């Protein structure tokens, strides 16, 4: 889960005194062999296979052949362009919400809670992981049900008028609207935001805050100039861990949305499992992967942290 390397301890490598002997030189490769072979065969090779599948034509009965049928990509893009738009915009909104909701909680755990409470809250953040997330997502159907207390309160506070205005909801429903899907995505990936944030905040020496205070920085200035910049690796890791899975998700759209909230994941799932049109499924997931990798690369370059593994 921790995606940031800990503060590097004084030069650990090389350790073995016998280093240099040829037998020792092979040791890392023997250690790597089974794990990396597993990843090559079941992760990297399938990716290549997928590239070839996306250029095939045929049917399940007659078999598929590579025909360099590039128009599969074009057709998939045309048919699913709104799915892509929805995937990335829902994922982006959910990521921003996760950051807005998760940062105060991570900050509270790191700086405000006593040691005992810190553990209790951390358990409460992690424990939901152990309840099937499908069950927890279904619980949102109850929470957001039409005419339920949450929807009633949102209506009374005129929040729904606002979300109606920006097209997140329509009428006085929340279920089967983009808002419900975004709410589910935010909920499902929130722990992935909180944990890296907490890891990076926890390392901050509280004396830095005192020092900023001594230099007449107001609390908000301290946060803006000291705390937030130091926590940036956590922010980058958290946003990636939220955005990437959220943009490929199809469960929230399926369970909490209506057909008009479907995301790319729903398209891939339908093509692969129901239509059995494997070339289109492969093309869709290839486009999704390429777009995400592109965005992540640009983002990481902008954010300027590379210590993610």
């Amino acid at each position, binding site marked *: 889960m921790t995606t940031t390397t800990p503060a590097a301890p004084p030069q650990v490598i090389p350790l073995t005194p016998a280093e240099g002997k040829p037998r020792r030189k092979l040791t890392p490769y023997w250690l790597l062999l089974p794990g990396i072979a597993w990843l090559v065969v079941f992760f990297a090779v399938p990716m290549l296979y997928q590239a070839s599948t996306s250029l095939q034509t045929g049917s399940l009965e007659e078999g598929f052949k590579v025909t360099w049928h590039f128009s599969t990509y074009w057709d998939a893009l045309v048919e699913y362009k709104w799915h892509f738009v929805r995937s990335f915009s829902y994922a982006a909104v959910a990521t921003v919400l996760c950051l807005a909701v998760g940062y105060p*909680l*991570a900050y509270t755990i790191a700086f405000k809670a006593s040691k005992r409470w810190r553990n209790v809250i951390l358990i409460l953040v992690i424990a939901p992981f152990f309840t099937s997330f499908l069950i927890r997502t279904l619980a949102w159907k109850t929470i957001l049900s039409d005419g339920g207390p949450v929807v009633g309160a949102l209506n009374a506070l005129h929040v729904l008028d606002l979300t109606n205005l920006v097209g997140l909801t329509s009428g006085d429903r929340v279920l089967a609207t983009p808002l419900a899907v975004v709410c589910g995505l935010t909920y499902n990936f929130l722990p992935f935001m909180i944990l890296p944030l907490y890891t990076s905040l926890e390392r901050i020496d509280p004396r830095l805050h005192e020092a900023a205070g001594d230099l007449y920085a107001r609390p908000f200035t301290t946060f803006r100039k000291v705390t937030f910049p130091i926590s940036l690796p956590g922010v980058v890791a958290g946003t990636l861990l939220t955005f990437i899975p959220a943009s490929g998700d199809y469960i929230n759209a399926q369970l909490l949305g209506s057909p008009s909230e479907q995301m790319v994941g729903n398209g891939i799932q339908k093509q692969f499992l129901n239509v059995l049109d494997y070339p289109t499924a492969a093309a869709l997931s290839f486009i999704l992967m390429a777009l995400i990798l592109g965005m992540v690369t640009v983002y990481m370059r902008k954010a300027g942290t590379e210590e993610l593994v």
Partner: protein
Amino acid sequence: MSRILKWVRAHLVVLAGLLALAYLVLPNLVVLAFSFNKPVGKFNYEWNEFSTDAWTNPCGVADMCQSLSLSLQIAVLATIGATVLGTMVAFALARYRFRGRSATTAMIFLPMAMPEVVMAASLGTLFLNMRIPFGFTTILIAHIMFCLSFVVTAVKARVMSMDPRLEQAAQDLYATPVQTFLRVTLPLAAPGIAAGALLSFALSFDDFIITQFNSGPTTVTFPMFVWGASQRGIPVQVNVIGTAMFLAAVVLTVAGQWLGNRRKATA
């Protein structure tokens, strides 16, 4: 009034944090409450009447406990596989400089940076092309694949933070490499390995997307059962299992921390 406002302003961050916590915990409370419901129709979304039927008869639904046991079997095997393979890779990365190190790191990172549905569809395509029938084995292969990277990350972080002088001391005291590894290195790395294993278990047990693309008609895991049920009608027992899992997780974590604290106190 102004005093209240002042207090709220002073504790704004904590209040926001607690609201976030409530947002995280609320669905679990709903799952708990609705495990005591006696729903009217096939779906368990609306409160009707208090009942303990589901708790007294948790396996009363056809196929549900079977799917639960299948999920447990897969999770245990996937955890063992991913932990063994991942720990080896983590030691290689943390302890050795070698040619191809950065390529290895990238290989470990990529599965974590890939949306599940992409890995799911591509692995499924491979199995289809190779005419390997979908079933227990294909699910297990897929689960070990996506758990591996998480184990490597957890173990590597731990091994990197270990003091190498302890192992050097053991060797100075004439411990053989095997003795050093078993008595010094492994116990020191154990918390990282345990964290990786625990994470693998949770990820594998709860996985839906990759499983849906790589399972056969007879291998219905628990998440697959819930998915199917969400379309046909959800038995209350699903909530019972969900709540039991949540409670077991909390109890295990608390017990683990308590044991850890006690060990620290006696050491």
